[in-house]
């Protein structure tokens, strides 16, 4: 780990001022991701701004019947919140399907949204990786890619996006609230928050501009229906999804589905949602119109279709 300087922000306004003052600084909340990266020198910020004391740790009802979740709300607290369990069960289930109890106690809502890839080549600084070292190449292509994305990949990167929570936020049509460097606010629909790797370097992962900070995530009024988070993995816990299905299925057979594990970002489309009443094959066909799979992860397309089928079967039961 490289030496760094450190300060504590007392409010979001404080934090964005500090960010503006220290280009290249990183915000640190739970630190479950960032500290690992700093120890391995995958990222080497010279300055950290601790945002744990910014007061963004409450969950509040919104006037339209939705929920506003502060950026610093811990994953454990969010998953256990009575309204989340009752009205947004897919979110609660997605969170507890991820990581471990100890990590969820530290990890925050905003941090989880910005979780970075678990590609082994990204983690090994001896290996080429465009995400870590722009222009060095993508080792996963032509290498070990069994766990990588089968859709949404580009020439520069085929990483799968690892966050379980984000898939649920995505299927719930959440909105990300962001404070800009000048202290004013803007909102980003969750569908636009996570980016495809695209063709340009450096690989951009999130729709945040430099100096911006997430302050909250809001959920619209409860969608009703049955909620599912089905995560497929080789071992039963403490593993990232090979494929996951976040779904809200209505009694009339319509519904919304976001896939995790299979794409470079939470994977959902209007065409996929529209196909839900027609069954898993139709949903998969709509979602996987342009696969970017390697020989090693081609199976994920079939696995995703079958996992959707499992969810739709359970929804009927």
């Amino acid at each position: 780990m490289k030496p760094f300087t450190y300060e504590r922000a007392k409010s979001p306004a404080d934090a964005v001022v500090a960010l503006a003052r220290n280009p290249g600084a990183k915000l640190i909340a739970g630190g479950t991701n960032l500290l690992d990266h700093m120890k391995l020198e995958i990222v080497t910020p010279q300055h950290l701004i601790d945002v744990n004391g910014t007061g963004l740790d409450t969950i509040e009802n919104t006037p339209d019947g939705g929920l506003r979740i502060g950026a610093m709300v811990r994953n454990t607290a969010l998953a256990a919140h009575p309204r989340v369990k009752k009205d947004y069960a897919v979110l609660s289930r997605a969170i507890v399907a991820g990581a471990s109890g100890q990590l969820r106690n530290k990890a925050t809502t905003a941090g989880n949204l910005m979780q970075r890839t678990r590609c082994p080549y990204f983690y090994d600084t001896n290996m080429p990786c465009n995400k870590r070292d722009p222009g060095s190449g993508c080792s996963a292509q032509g290498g070990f890619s069994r766990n990588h994305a089968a859709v949404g990949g580009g020439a520069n990167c085929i990483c799968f996006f690892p966050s379980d929570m984000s898939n649920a936020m995505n299927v719930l049509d959440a909105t990300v609230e962001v404070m800009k460097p000048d202290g004013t606010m803007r909102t980003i629909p969750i569908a636009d928050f996570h980016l495809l790797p695209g063709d340009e370097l450096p690989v951009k992962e999130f729709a945040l501009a430099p100096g911006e900070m997430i302050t909250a995530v809001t959920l619209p009024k409860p969608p009703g229906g049955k909620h599912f988070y089905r995560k497929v993995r080789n071992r039963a816990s403490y593993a990232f999804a090979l494929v996951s299905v976040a779904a809200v299925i209505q009694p009339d057979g319509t519904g919304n589905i976001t896939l995790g594990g299979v794409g470079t970002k939470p994977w959902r489309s209007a065409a996929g949602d529209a196909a839900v009443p027609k069954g898993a094959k139709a949903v998969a066909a709509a979602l996987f119109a342009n696969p970017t799979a390697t020989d090693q992860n081609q199976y994920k397309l079939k696995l995703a279709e079958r996992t959707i089928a499992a969810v739709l079967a359970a929804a009927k039961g």
Partner: protein
Amino acid sequence: MKFDTPAGTNPIDQGKVIGKPTHRIEGPLKTTGKATYAAEWHADVPNAAHGNIVGAAIAKGRIKSMDLSAAKAAAGVITIVTADSAGALDKAGRNTAKLLGGPEIQHYHQAVALVVAQTFEQAVAASHLVRIDYDRADDGKFVLADARDAAKPVQGRAADQLLGDFEGAFAAAPVKVDATYTTADHAHAMMEPYATIASWEGDKLTLRTSNQMIDWCRMDVARTLKIPKANVRVLSPYVGGGFGGKLWLRTDAVLAALGARQAGRPVKVVMQRELMFNNSVHRHATIQKLRIGAGKDGRITALDHEGWSGNLPGGGSENAVNASRSMYAGANRMMRNRLALLDLPEGNAMRAPGEAVGSIALEVAMDELAEKLGMDPVAFRVLNDSQVDPAHPEKSFSLRKMIECLQVGAKAFGWNKRSAKPGTRRDGQWLIGMGVAAALRDSPAMTSGARVRLSADGRVTVETDMTDIGTGSYTIIAQTAAEMLGVGLDKVSVKLGDSDFPVSSGSGGQWGANSSTSGVYAACVKLREAVAAKLGIDPATATFAGGKVSGGGKNATLTQAAADGEVLGEDTIKFGGIRDQTHQSAFGAHFVEVGVDSFTGEIRLRRMLAVCSAGRILNPTSARSQVIGAMTMGAGAVLSEELVVDPRFGHFVNHDLAQYEVLVHADVPHQEVIFLPDLDPASSPMKAHGVGELGICGVGGAVANAVYNATGVRLREFPMTVDKVLAGLPELA
């Protein structure tokens, strides 16, 4: 003491302490954080500097140049060890690759430098400033399947064994199986990483380390550093898991010693987790070809097991065919190991080397043949039991209850509820199946010494350089001494893992429990003689019970014997005679029930049972812990554990505990262990075998057979990850 004839009745047979379920006596030290693991001797070595290892960034080639200037100038840096600064080092025969590389690089993450600094953080930060320019060799070989054709026969213990006319018998067999299986490279992935604190006093070196074999470590570090063995002291009283990975002197100990010499003060080295998988040793991947032929009556007539593995030049093979040598009958046999050259990190022993992965392939092949014969897999195995070693028919097994293990297990598990037709049992979305496998693991015994002291307060203290790698050595040694001297466990202290103590068997090859307690038995016999002599009682008839000694009409207390000074017994047990005249193996049977998700292909264990016949079970509590841990590890080997090789870079890609997937609690819902109540007088005075490695043998085969029974998908490439299972499942309706 020489053990060369079968043991008669001895004090161990009283079974007052030995054989009773006993919690580990050092448990409170561990649960309260007082046990000093290798990196935790803060009070004894308060001034240790911190060393951080730099691993090579290439798998094969040379260092062109190293620039240490930035690292040396970094805050807190005391010194940097490299091959240049270390001077000429020797290499012990038990190590294949050099523990400090450069300029030649033999494998990825081979250590090339140790940065020593005042604090851990400074050492890590400065390590990233070491600039190395490499010349990468382009002729590295990393893929076993590609190197297979150039593989060579193996000599020594793993050499070819040819009996009868295999080809003729196989051609003539009416029912046969001919199949190839593969197993992946496996990591020991022990919780405690390699760690050492080294300190010098003049030319005397003390290593506080984590090692399974104290005397080997002492010998090999002396050899490597070219110093007299007498100048080295090794301390390793607590080991946080080894599984064979700590049988050897490793990088941490050598670099800590070199670092401490250069720094002029003690140095602590804890290997970074991300180096553990490529810097150290691993279980070799295998390709295994099985050809088994049987008559229509189900009797095996021909058995060929050929195994391929790869290693660095000078390294050994995975003796995958070993269990097949003596597991089943059959007159015509070929057992062959082939070793290829690979430039991956060093392959070496991991829990039940050979048998653990060899029995996966053998037991799946047996399942395939049973199905072709239309026989129940339990009955097929029972029919083909052999009470003698097929290669040495004059040599019977001293204890072989494979049939009983299978039969007792079948009854306890409810094997009769298994559907012989695959893919026919369901529980909702789950496809349910059962599998069975037999298990064999050789039970070697090793020379083992101990010293036992009786002090004036009646306390008994055992000293031996035996290690406890989480297995429960402290407890069974205490039980042995308590039984022999007729005192309670509370009167016994056990001191382990110090090269100042008599040399023991150490922990490996499941020989530790039987051998080390036999050494303690021998020392206790000496102490009993000394005590009896002091009290004027005939040692031959003296009985020791309740802290008292009696015989020939005389009664006295143990404390009386030590009233005018400590009484000491020291001895070393050596094995021969009957042990060489019989074949000594532990046997078992594994029963497994799995569910396979019919949509996703995920395999989830439902129930596991192991039945073990391993002679006297010294402590059922710790023996059970050993077996259920081994069952978990054996299941992991076929479900998720796999070091993935990237043939472009020549390294194991998934080198941390997030990506190398050992099973977690959620994977292991219910495990049961039954020990058959056996004694083996031909084994040792303890009449025991090992169980720590028996438990891993065969279990993967039982899991794979259960998956087949559940789904009708026969997988032969392990681990059976979702992608492979999915490929065999029928399309959804």
